[in-house]
């Protein structure tokens, strides 16, 4: 069995630092809500649809509340109050507000409004819980794939074209299909509506698109006898709303990271920290596996030099996840095979990193990303980089295996790129089926020493972050060589200080529900 000799004391110390780091952020942020958290809340209460200008009704409603200074109390009770008072559904309230026919106010009977909001929320929670059960039944019925699960993306920009490609991918062997979303979506402060056919580098994440793809994958999964997991992006300015939509439509995985938006999308730090807490609570309750984004660090920083920043970030992401009720097997902590192919012994370092992560998170559902940064237009060479990535993945027992595309440096995947990528992985996984069981790494050897070194560096950097706090650490460019400040970035205007009587039924219901 591939095992490295690591100092458990160091691992424990690193984890303790991360716990304190995450809790401090959580404590600081729990006094705020955001516009998208409130919109997500409304969505979960049944508000959907768009107005004549294609502006989603949750946005209309939340803007309305914001204008009236009501948002600080939480949208749920206000809307529930209006529902009771006018005998309307949440959707009808939203429509009436959008039509200018209704102006909301603080509920007359605050306690009653909260109770009815809680009742509505409980119903939605039942629906989501039922989706969770349905997932389990489906897996039971049609069958579960062997790990590493093959994860493939579709990114045509057109949901109907995506479906064709996703079906073909599943037939060819994909276990997970991720619908990449359009280039601009993460910076939109609303979620587009309906089935969409015009994205750039990906297809818009909309509830209807989720539904269409879910149905297609259920169908093909039944045909081929393997439950096919559906993934989307729960990042960006609408993270909580997408979490809500995904929970309702039975997505199985969500890309969700506590820092990705900050670092790579220049989204405001507060906004992101607040949003990710709510999102993850929803994900946790819905039985969704999150995928964190540490792999991205290695696209801007060097995979060798910055290996410890990946592990440090994973430990922090883990602690944030615990706060939201996620279980270890829902934690798709991300890392990547981004080692420079020209680096002598690079494969050894990559094995060391992957195995280190495996051992530090023995129960996590690790997500391992293929080479991207060092891929070039030489598709033949790239195909081999991907093959060695496949080797490391099976050797170190990764769980979620993103398939490398030989055309990574050129275009979003063509159908044949995906086909060949699956073939690549299946060949490697099959011909090396039990290799992980047969290979041992020399004690005190290069691989083990490298892993120990990265672990030690991780302990060090986490102690440092603990000292200065996570926001300051991000300010110093600790992760990905990119620096962001507390008040910079997009979306700060959507951060709202909660009033003392702020109310939202979902976090408590959901946190209780998963335990």
């Amino acid at each position, binding site marked *: 069995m591939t095992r490295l000799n690591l100092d458990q004391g160091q691992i424990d110390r690193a984890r303790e630092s991360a716990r304190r780091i995450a809790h401090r952020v959580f404590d600081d942020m729990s006094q705020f809500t955001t516009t998208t958290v409130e919109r997500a809340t409304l969505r979960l209460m049944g508000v959907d649809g768009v107005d004549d200008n294609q502006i989603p009704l949750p946005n209309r409603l939340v803007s309305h509340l914001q204008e009236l200074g009501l948002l600080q109390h939480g949208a749920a009770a206000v809307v529930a109050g209006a529902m009771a008072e006018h005998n309307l559904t949440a959707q009808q309230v939203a429509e009436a507000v959008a039509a200018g026919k209704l102006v909301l106010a603080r509920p007359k009977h605050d306690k009653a409004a909260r109770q009815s909001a809680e009742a509505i929320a409980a119903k939605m929670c039942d629906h989501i819980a039922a989706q969770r059960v349905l997932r389990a039944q489906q897996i039971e019925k049609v069958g579960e794939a062997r790990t590493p699960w093959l994860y493939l993306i579709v*990114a*045509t920009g*057109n949901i109907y*074209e995506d479906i064709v*490609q996703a079906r073909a991918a599943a037939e060819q062997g994909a276990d997970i299909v991720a619908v990449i979303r359009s280039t601009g979506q993460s910076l939109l402060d609303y979620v587009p509506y309906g089935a969409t056919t015009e994205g750039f580098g990906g297809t818009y994440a909309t509830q209807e698109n989720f539904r269409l793809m879910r149905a297609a994958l259920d169908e093909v999964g039944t045909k081929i006898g393997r439950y096919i997991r559906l993934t989307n992006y729960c990042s960006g300015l609408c993270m909580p709303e997408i979490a809500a939509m995904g929970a309702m439509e039975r997505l199985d995985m969500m890309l969700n990271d506590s820092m990705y938006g900050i670092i790579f999308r220049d989204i405001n730090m507060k906004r992101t920290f607040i949003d990710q807490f709510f999102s993850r609570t929803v994900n946790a309750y819905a039985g969704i596996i999150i995928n964190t984004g540490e792999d991205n660090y290695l696209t801007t920083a060097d995979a060798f030099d910055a290996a410890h920043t990946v592990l440090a970030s994973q430990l922090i992401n883990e602690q944030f996840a615990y706060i939201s009720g996620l279980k270890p097997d829902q934690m798709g902590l991300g890392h990547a095979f981004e080692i420079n192919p020209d680096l002598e012994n690079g494969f050894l370092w990559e094995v060391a990193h992957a195995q280190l992560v495996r051992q530090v998170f023995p129960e996590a559902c690790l997500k391992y990303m293929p080479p991207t940064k060092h891929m*070039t*237009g*030489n*598709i*033949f060479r790239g195909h081999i980089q991907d093959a060695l990535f496949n080797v490391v993945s099976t050797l170190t027992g990764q769980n979620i295996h993103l398939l490398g595309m030989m*055309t990574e*440096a*050129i*275009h*979003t*995947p*063509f*159908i*044949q790129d995906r086909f060949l990528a699956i073939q690549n992985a299946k060949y490697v996984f099959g011909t090396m089926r039990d290799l992980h069981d047969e290979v041992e790494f020399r004690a005190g050897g290069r691989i083990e020493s490298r892993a120990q070194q990265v672990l030690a560096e991780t302990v060090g950097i986490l102690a440092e972050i603990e000292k200065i706090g996570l926001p300051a650490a991000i300010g110093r460019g600790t992760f990905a060589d990119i620096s962001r400040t507390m008040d910079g970035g997009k979306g700060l205007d959507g951060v709202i200080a909660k009033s003392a009587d702020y109310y939202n039924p979902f976090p408590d219901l959901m946190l209780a529900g998963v335990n």
Partner: protein
Amino acid sequence: MTQQQITENWVKPYGDTMNDGRVQLSFTLPVALDENAKEAARQLALEMGLDEPAVVHAEDMGQGFSFCVLYGQCKHRVDLSRIKVAKPEFETLDKDAINALIAEKMGRKMVVVGACIETDAHTVGIDAIMNMKGYNGHKGLESYHEVRAINMGAQVDSEELVARAIEEQADVILVSQVVTQKNIHLDNLTRLSDLLEAEGIRDRVILVVGGPRISHELAKELGYDAGFGTKSYAEDVASFAIHEWTKRHAV
């Protein structure tokens, strides 16, 4: 429906959208790498009818050669409804059915002589068809009790093969050709059929050729009765043979 309706059915390569025409291309240019070499590669792709060709990779190979990888959008399309692949017309039966048919139609064993001819030393293909063991779980002709299968192996001169066919009164001659460099197989195959003509027995035998680069179309062009490519098995060629024999001996 009594009247056959042929509707056009145009097809184009597919990348990620119907009719986007995406194709991948690679080749070497015998010039050292520079911007002009890349442009030459791009222009070649244009000449081939690729829109928006992109040289996504170009690398110097030393000695004045450059390797290029390209993607582009193929303008051409073909009408599938007009495509008629030449293929031997018969239904592939299983071993038992073939044996039964031979017994019924011929009333005696069918004699099949096979070889991989001239300098070609690849026996695996002809063995796959003729030897007991067969290939990929498909038994070979030796295992058919209504077939007398004589496998002469590889590197067999055409003269030898013809002599043996005459001696054994072969109904069928099977030839394998694997090496195709500089079209050597065309020379070899032509030589054999000329010899059979010269001996005056061309019409008396069913003449079949097979190999990884052989198509039925090519076989027909060379004056053979049928050609079989990769993934053909004993039952394919035996089905064809008894079908063809029956046709020829129909009154």
